[in-house]
């Protein structure tokens, strides 16, 4: 599948109807989502035939794209039932019969959660932690690393790059910044009156194969 073709499909994925600002509900644009997924698949072979997880899947644009690129199965996780309902409709619309959804709070996962290293790849666009939920970006990352046995792909504010690099060293994983992107968040929340402010965002890849046999990151920050 060509990149343009993938982007074309992702333009047809429905987005949030009434985005909840406190949950940082803005979608990954089809353009960015297609580039992320395409890179994951063609440069790293991390999608086709893999078990892929999407944390904070929202309406599921990353999950649907991963199904389109031939993941064996993709499981999306989100806290919000309204978003999951839209994701579920998108799933039917795209006939992605290997796409499953689970409602859960990434910050309050059962202590005995059994997803440890069960996934090959995690892809996500987590909340940045700017809406009274400071630190949630790192909580998403930590859980993702605990769940994946190969790699995690995520988006983080470029401003936090050095901090995340330090955390990666602490957790014993290898971090690469694959691309620096621009997000136009004001345009995502249509009701915002503010003028457009671009935010610099890093597209990162974390290689977690080294933590697969070890314990992975512990629960302390």
């Amino acid at each position, binding site marked *: 599948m060509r990149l343009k073709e993938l982007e074309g499909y992702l333009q047809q994925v429905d987005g949030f109807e009434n985005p909840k600002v406190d949950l940082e509900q803005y979608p990954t644009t089809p353009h960015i989502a297609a580039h992320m997924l395409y890179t994951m698949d063609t440069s790293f072979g991390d999608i086709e*035939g893999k*078990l892929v997880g999407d944390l904070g899947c929202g309406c599921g644009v990353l999950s649907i794209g991963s199904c389109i690129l031939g993941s*064996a*199965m993709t*499981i999306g996780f989100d*806290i919000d*039932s309204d978003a*999951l*309902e839209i994701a*579920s409709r998108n799933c039917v619309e795209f006939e992605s*019969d*290997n796409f*499953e*959804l*689970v*409602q*859960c*709070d990434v910050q*309050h*996962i*059962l202590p*005995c959660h*059994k*997803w440890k290293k*069960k996934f090959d790849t995690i892809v996500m666009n987590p909340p940045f932690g700017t809406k009274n939920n400071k630190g949630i970006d790192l909580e998403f990352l930590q859980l993702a690393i605990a769940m994946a046995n190969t790699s995690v792909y995520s988006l983080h504010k470029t401003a936090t790059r050095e901090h995340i690099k330090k955390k990666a060293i602490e957790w014993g994983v290898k971090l690469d910044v694959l691309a620096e992107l621009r997000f136009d968040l004001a345009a995502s929340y249509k009701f915002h009156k503010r003028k457009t402010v671009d935010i610099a965002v890093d597209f990162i890849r974390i290689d977690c194969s080294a933590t697969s046999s070890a314990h992975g990151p512990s629960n302390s920050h």
Partner: protein
Amino acid sequence: MDLKLVGSGEEEVSNVVVNEVDFNPEFISRMIPKVGRSEGLPAEVIPDYENDEEFLKKVHHVLLEVQVEEGSLVCPETGRKFPIKNGIPNMLLNEDEV
């Protein structure tokens, strides 16, 4: 689906649908060590299962094709139930569990 996938629970099933999904023997073989015992799966993993197409097809069916629309997942250790609505398991914790 998910608890089955991760092998920690038994379901209380009240509404099941079956969708046909493409059979990918390589993926199913990789999943077998990850899934625990669960309702509907063959009780024992047979030796050399990678080459047993019939066995892999059974697991494929249970893992990917059988979808619980309404029901619940039960944690075998604590008895805690997680409801499934419209095929989506709700694993949110209650206030007192957080």
